[in-house]
């Protein structure tokens, strides 16, 4: 059978760390990157006799996420213990939710190649993160860092509604932007605060029954997720084509070798022996509580996008890029407030800022400057104080060492030369040095003008006002 006769089916389990100030069951801070075991206490270290106390903010954030993804919110929910042994799990059980998750039966809408599609959300539940093992740091052995133990997570489980890597990527990006917009998670993939496990199966097109699925873990970028899925789809089709059967198992994606590996190191049989957490009382939510959260939900990306199209006349494509990230979108809106020029801000974000983000591999949340500084940069461009080529340099400087753009150009001496006398002097000097180009121009080769302007720009390190330069060259060569 040909590959085209197969269809891939994907479902995602996304773990997103909630950005609450404190952990889910104790008051330790959740900040990333601290020295090992400095953000711990007897509770998150699972000292004997300690008890968990549920952080109410965690419930609030999860309900927000549920409402933003069209879920039904359970008024009656509870915590359960998921039991397994691993050194990063100090209690030997993870407090999670089993049969009564906080949120159920939602969906989000994605768009791929102009086609809209609803992807079902099976459930969203709250749970605690595990700690981290640092291997071989002190010459052999493993060291346990429990700073992350007890950091609150939501697990968002999708229906097996996804059919391509494009759909998977669109779903993840949409989900990520929703969580950013409602400010429940900062979704930093490199720091592991937004992680996806992918369930993949293949079946013959037209089959209604799902094939046997494998679960892939350890993919920490959109790129590795796409690669992992592509690899796994091919692998499963190969197995089937060779007359074999796909085994249900958990696989670890290895980004370096570009392969998946079977992972059976946790426990042979995965029987988590879930049972209700006796140390915590049931979670009962009133209709009023849920309504209050609903009322405070911020504007979501879909609605912002619509507004950008109408209010700022952005193109569909640009509006989508900007609203894909709350941070870009906030940057956009903030800068407009300062400079009142949506078109110019849009252009800077779509061309230069996007390029720099891509080149330096940083995420919008990590942009070091603020919207005020960006707005001021646009004002300098609009007033002609700096040229657009200097504008790019200022932007790069903003990424390097963010401060007031005015200060940057003063300090660097980048103010545009708009003095006619000064410009005329430069033009005359360039003309003297390049008689051939003058001759070319006069014989009808318009390109020669471009060369001359370029030389003048070089001479002034880009500071000459290009309109004035053009004008003067034309006048001098009349």
């Amino acid at each position, binding site marked *: 059978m040909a590959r085209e006769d197969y269809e891939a089916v994907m479902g995602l389990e996304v773990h997103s760390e909630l950005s609450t100030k404190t952990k889910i069951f104790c008051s330790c801070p959740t900040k990333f990157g601290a020295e090992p075991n400095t953000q711990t206490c*007897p509770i998150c*270290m*699972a*000292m*004997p*006799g*300690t*008890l*968990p*106390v*549920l952080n109410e903010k965690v419930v609030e954030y999860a309900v927000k996420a549920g409402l933003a993804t069209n879920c039904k919110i359970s008024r009656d929910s509870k915590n359960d*213990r998921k*039991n397994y*042994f691993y*050194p990063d799990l*100090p*209690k*030997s*059980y993870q407090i999670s939710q089993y049969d009564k998750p906080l949120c159920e039966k939602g969906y989000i809408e994605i768009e791929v190649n102009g086609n809209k599609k609803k992807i079902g959300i099976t459930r969203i539940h709250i749970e605690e993160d595990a700690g981290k093992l640092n291997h071989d740091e002190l010459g052999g052995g493993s060291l*346990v860092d429990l700073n992350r133990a007890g950091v609150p997570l939501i697990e968002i489980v999708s229906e097996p509604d996804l059919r391509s890597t494009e759909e998977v990527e669109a779903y993840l990006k949409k989900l990520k932007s929703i969580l950013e917009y409602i400010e429940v998670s900062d979704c930093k993939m490199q720091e592991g605060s937004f992680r996806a496990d992918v369930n993949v199966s293949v079946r013959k097109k037209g089959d209604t029954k799902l094939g046997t699925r494998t679960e892939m873990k350890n993919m920490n970028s959109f790129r590795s997720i796409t690669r992992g899925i592509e690899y796994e789809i091919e692998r499963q089709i190969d197995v089937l084509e060779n007359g074999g059967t796909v085994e249900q198992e958990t696989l670890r994606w290895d980004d370096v070798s570009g392969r998946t590996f079977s992972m059976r190191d946790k426990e042979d049989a995965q*029987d988590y*022996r*879930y*049972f209700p957490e*006796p*140390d*915590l*009382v049931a979670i009962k939510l009133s209709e009023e509580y849920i309504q209050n959260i609903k009322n405070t939900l911020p504007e979501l990306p879909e609605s912002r996008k619509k507004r950008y199209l109408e209010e700022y006349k952005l193109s569909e494509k640009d509006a989508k890029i900007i609203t894909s990230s709350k941070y870009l979108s906030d940057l956009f809106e903030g800068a407009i407030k300062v400079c009142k020029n949506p078109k110019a801000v849009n252009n800077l974000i779509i061309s230069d800022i996007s390029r720099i983000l891509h080149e330096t591999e940083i995420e919008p949340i990590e942009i070091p400057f603020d919207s005020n500084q960006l707005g001021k940069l646009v004002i300098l461009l609009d007033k002609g104080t700096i040229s657009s080529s200097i504008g790019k340099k200022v932007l790069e400087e903003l990424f390097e060492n963010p401060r007031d753009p005015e200060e940057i150009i003063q300090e660097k001496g980048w103010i545009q030369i708009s003095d006619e006398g000064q410009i005329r002097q430069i033009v005359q000097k360039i003309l003297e040095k390049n008689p051939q180009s003058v001759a070319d121009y006069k014989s009808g080769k318009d390109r020669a003008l471009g060369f001359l302007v370029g030389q003048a720009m070089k001479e002034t390190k880009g500071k000459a006002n290009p309109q004035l330069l053009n004008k003067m060259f034309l006048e001098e060569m009349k």
Partner: protein
Amino acid sequence: MNITELTVHELQEKIKNKELNAKEILNAYLDRIQAREKDVQAFVTILKEESKNELEKIQKEKEELNDFDGIPIGVKDNICTKGIKTTCSSKMLENFISPYDASVIEKIKENNMIILGKLNMDEFAMGGSTEYSYFKKTKNPWNLNKVPGGSSGGSAAAVAANMVPWALGSDTGGSIRQPASFCGVVGLKPTYGLVSRYGLVAFASSLDQIGPITKDVRDCALLLNIIAGHDEKDTTSCNRNNIDYTKALKNDVKGMKIAVPKEFFAEGINQEVKSKLEEAAKIYEELGATVEEISLDIAKYSLATYYIIACAEASSNLGRFDGIRYTYRTKEFKNLKELYRKSRSEGFGAEVKRRIILGTYVLSSGYYDAYYKKAQKVRTLVMNQFKEVFNKYDLILTPTSPTVAFDIGSKSNNPLEMYLADICTVSVNIAGLPAISIPINVDSQGMPIGMQLIGNKFCEETILNAAYTYEQKIKFREKYRPEFKS
């Protein structure tokens, strides 16, 4: 005056009248421990120097001592004490020093009480004789060949032997009441949620409660006053107004309605225990209460239900003792799995392992519905039946244990028979109710017999008053005392 024979309220009286001071009291107890510990073996840790230093510190800070300042206390070794070993009488935690104080210990310290030591118990509170301690077998002060009961056997024996004036125990299925009964002292298991569990090393989280073991009912009320109350560190603790339980001791049970469930007097009960309990019921009638026989037929399922739920929770709670951090770790291992397996195999005793295996089994997929889920349903039925009884009656009267203290070694190799010793006490934990055990008499061999009074949720005042009234009537402590027979 023999200081160590006095109750705490008697000590307080003497301090107030300047007949005694805190230093004399502490020294008397340290001497008593010195004299009796070799026979009774109640302590895992004795804090001789520490307790003296602690008293000096308090005396320096305060000129005049009052209330509970300087009153000594013993603590079961599964309640965490900062800077002092908390072993749970297990090899697993042989060298574990808690970095924090349990909430009840904070309260003890706020009241400037002096901890005399940590008391022996069945390993991780699993057992009914204190024979399952990794360190030592505690003896019953009434007869050194008998067990003190368990799991709070060290606490009950130390109080009975006057080595501490009172002690804290914990009760998951009878672990305060049964040893109190065996040792002829008073033991109270409070309503689930009345006393914070924060810092009590968990055995079965939905059943565990810390409670007092004392010489008499007034002391029991006094100690309950100190340890009861809401704790924001334990979300299962209840937010209620604080009560002075000593005010409930009215020495009057007129009009009180007492139910006597026939199932607790049927099969397996020792005839002497039975007849003394029947006598006790008659005494209540003489005192003006009405006593009626009832049926509590769901009780026969309590023991099975208890062992399923308790073991299920224990199998999860004891997972953290894994050889990775603060526990015993095996000497040699090739990989992680072997580190776990060997540390846990070597660190836990047989009874603990038995219960972990049982609990793991009942939670396993394919068995969960048949065992754990069914047990939870029965638990609801047990609660409902008790509720019905308390619609009509103020309290329920039963034996605390079907027998008096048994010989050391007579049951330790027969787990099922050992479990049967809990038959009268476990349903109280299943239903989350309060219950007290007080000594009512001795059998023909001079071993104490205990009576259990069960109250409705948060009706500690009712059972304390009923117990107090009975105690005032028969004056057990004036008639009988432990003789350290061997």
